[in-house]
Each structure stands twice: as structure tokens, then as C-alpha cells.
């Protein structure tokens, strides 16, 4: 379990978080969403101990992240959006250098993941495209076998077939009880994969709810006219999509982009609906 309590953080004089509370119980694929600059990456860095909160606490299985205890570090892995890889190294050498720090690493899992993502473990990074490098990093990261996996924009640079493979791999890993937090703007890449959904804004958590709870509270109506009372409406080829409060109890198909827009525009109403 990752627990964030009364957390304050700022970069010099720019406040990022003030009095944030969030918890990530074990065994789910959390989707961390928010506009540019709200601190999604910062939050991941605080969880893995790379940034120190100004006030408040962040703990992983009860251990304060910034203490960077070996027992905590070996349970958490963070894959940043951009990683500079040594040109002459290979995925195999890269993962072999990380492996000693992670007792749960599995070479078998690494090779299996590389095969699933169709990247050669012995190929030099400089001979690879950006997407292949990214896939190598994903395979290396997941093969470490940590209980907590923090992924920042993991689908950036992946080609179209790889995105489906990525979802399939993550689905299997979640089924093993791992806790995965995916920070992303590419919500279509992880639609139907992330659950619960956490939406951050400057200095606040706007939404932290399971997909079931969201579709119980909000109804996504596809193909009609714009509604006055909608929290969000958007014209699609087949008509308007409306996000309205769910009054019938029928659950509809969640559209994450529409949810995001609805939440951003109706902070108080959403708060009221979900409290």
C-alpha cells in the first residue's frame, strides 16, 4: 500500500501540492491523469523517493519513501518518460546491471517480455528506434518483479501493434497482484485498462474512483442532442456525447477523455456527486 498524507511539495517558489491525501491499495492499475504541469511526474518521484516532500508523508508498505531504505527501494520501480540509454549497451546488459538491486528479478520473465514485445535482448541501443528502446525499458522494468510499478507515459513512442501488447502484458501483471500506477495523457492507449482513475489538478485530487463507481455516478450518453444539464457535451460523428449524472442506475461505457473534461469543468458538482 502506498499512502500519501497531508503532502506539501513545491519547486523553489512554485507550489505543486498542498495538503494532498491519496492512497493506492495493492493490486490495481491506477490511471493518474491531469493537465500538463499538475505534478503527475512529481508524485511518482515522491513515491519512489526521488523527491522529498516539504511537509506530510509518503510511505510504501509503511516505509517513508524518502528514507530510501533498501527494503523499500527493492519493492518499487519507476520508469520515467525519457531515459538516456548508453549507445553501446544492450537491453540484456542494461537489465543485468539493475537486477542485483531487485531480488525479485527474473531473467526468464525478461526474455519472455522481450519476445512478446518483439525486441532482441542483445541488440545495441544505438541500432534501435525510439519505440524499440522504450519497449526494452518496459520489459526490463517489469521483469524486476517489484510489487509497485510506476510508469510515466509508458505508451509514448510505441507503435500501434505494441500498444495492444502493452495492455495485454499489464493486464497479466495486474492479475498477479502487483500495483501499477500509470501517469499518462494518452488515455485511449490505456482505456479499459486503468481502474481506479485518479485525476489531479493544481493542489487537489479532483477524482479518485473506480470505474464501477464512476459509471454508477455518471452516465455517458452517446449519439443524441446536446443536453443543457450535461457536465460535458461533445459533438461526435454520430451525435452528441453527453456526460450526465446517472439517475437510472444503468451503467454505460466510460469515456475517459469526456470524464476528464467533465471533472475539470465541474469540480464542485463532481465533488458533491462522489463524496
Amino acid at each position, binding site marked *: 500500500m502506498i499512502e500519501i498524507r497531508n503532502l506539501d511539495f513545491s519547486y523553489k517558489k512554485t507550489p505543486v501540492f498542498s495538503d494532498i491525501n491519496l492512497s493506492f491499495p495493492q493490486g*490495481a*492499475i491506477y490511471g493518474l491523469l491531469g493537465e500538463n504541469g499538475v505534478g503527475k511526474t512529481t508524485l511518482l518521484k515522491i513515491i519512489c523517493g526521488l523527491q522529498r516532500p516539504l511537509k506530510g508523508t509518503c510511505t510504501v508498505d509503511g516505509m517513508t519513501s524518502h528514507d530510501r531504505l533498501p527494503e523499500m527501494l527493492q519493492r518499487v520501480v519507476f520508469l520515467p518518460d525519457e531515459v538516456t540509454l548508453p549507445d553501446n549497451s544492450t537491453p540484456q546488459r542494461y537489465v543485468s546491471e539493475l537486477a542485483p538491486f531487485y531480488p525479485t528479478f527474473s531473467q526468464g520473465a525478461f526474455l519472455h517480455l522481450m519476445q512478446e514485445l518483439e525486441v532482441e535482448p542483445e541488440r545495441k541501443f544505438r541500432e534501435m528506434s525510439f519505440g524499440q528502446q522504450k519497449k526494452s525499458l518496459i520489459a526490463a522494468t517489469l521483469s524486476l518483479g517489484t510489487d509497485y510499478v510506476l510508469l510515466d507515459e509508458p505508451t509514448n513512442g510505441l507503435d500501434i501493434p505494441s500498444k*495492444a501488447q*502493452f*495492455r*495485454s*502484458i*499489464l*493486464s*497479466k501483471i*495486474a*492479475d498477479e497482484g502487483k500495483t501499477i500506477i500509470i501517469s499518462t495523457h494518452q488515455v485511449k492507449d490505456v482505456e*479499459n*485498462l*486503468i*481502474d481506479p482513475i485518479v485525476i489531479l489538478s493544481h493542489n487537489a485530487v479532483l477524482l479518485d474512483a473506480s*470505474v*464501477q463507481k464512476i*459509471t454508477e455516478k455518471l452516465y*455517458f*450518453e*452517446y*449519439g*443524441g442532442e446536446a443536453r443543457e444539464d450535461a457536465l460535458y457535451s461533445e459533438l461526435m460523428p*454520430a*451525435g452528441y456525447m453527453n456526460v450526465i449524472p446517472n439517475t437510472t442506475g*444503468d*451503467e*454505460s*461505457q*466510460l469515456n475517459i477523455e469526456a470524464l476528464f473534461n467533465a471533472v475539470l469543468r465541474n469540480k464542485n458538482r463532481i465533488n458533491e456527486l462522489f463524496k
Partner: protein
Amino acid sequence: MEFRKQKSIYQQIADRLMDQILAGMPAEDERMQSVRDVAASMGVNPNTVMRSFDYLQSEEIINIRRGVGYFVSPDAKTKILALQRREFLEEELPVIRQKMKTLGIGIEELTKED
């Protein structure tokens, strides 16, 4: 006018599993694919598929054998057809009826042989 509401993903998956059972894959009394395999093959969250399985179990279309997995109930097809018939009558037929009225299509069109 929408023909069908867009159901939530867990319901869409449950519908698909029911269609597969109706087609005999898997047949009655046979074992279901695991939640994990269904989720991975679709790239969806395993909890969502778990909800679909829970729903099918609550409708007694599948049953769990502890330590073994989920199995299709002996009378699953009858139960699925009853469910689908109810859904057709309550949700789809009113839409079709309305559309036929709008398009001026009479009842005889429904029974006409090609």
C-alpha cells in the same frame, strides 16, 4: 436515435461470453477460459472481467468449482436465451417499433421470406 445504449465494458464482455456459450464455445458443463486469459487477450483490466464473471455467476450461467475454475452451467443456454429475450423485448423492440413507424414499414415486412 440510438439503436442501443452503449453498455459498460463489463456488460459488453459478459454479452460476448454469453454469445460464445450459445455458439458452444465453451459448451455446457465445459470449463471457461480463465479471467486472466480473457483479460489479457482483450487487454482490459482483470477486475473488469471478474465483474463480468460475477454477473454470469449471479445469473447462474456459470458456476465456480473451488480450486478448478469456472464452468458453464448445464442449462446455461436456456438461461442466456431467456435473458436475451427479455432484453430484446424491453430495450431493442421499442426502438425497432419506433423506427418502423418512422420509416412506414408494416408488420408484413417482418414475416416476408426472401
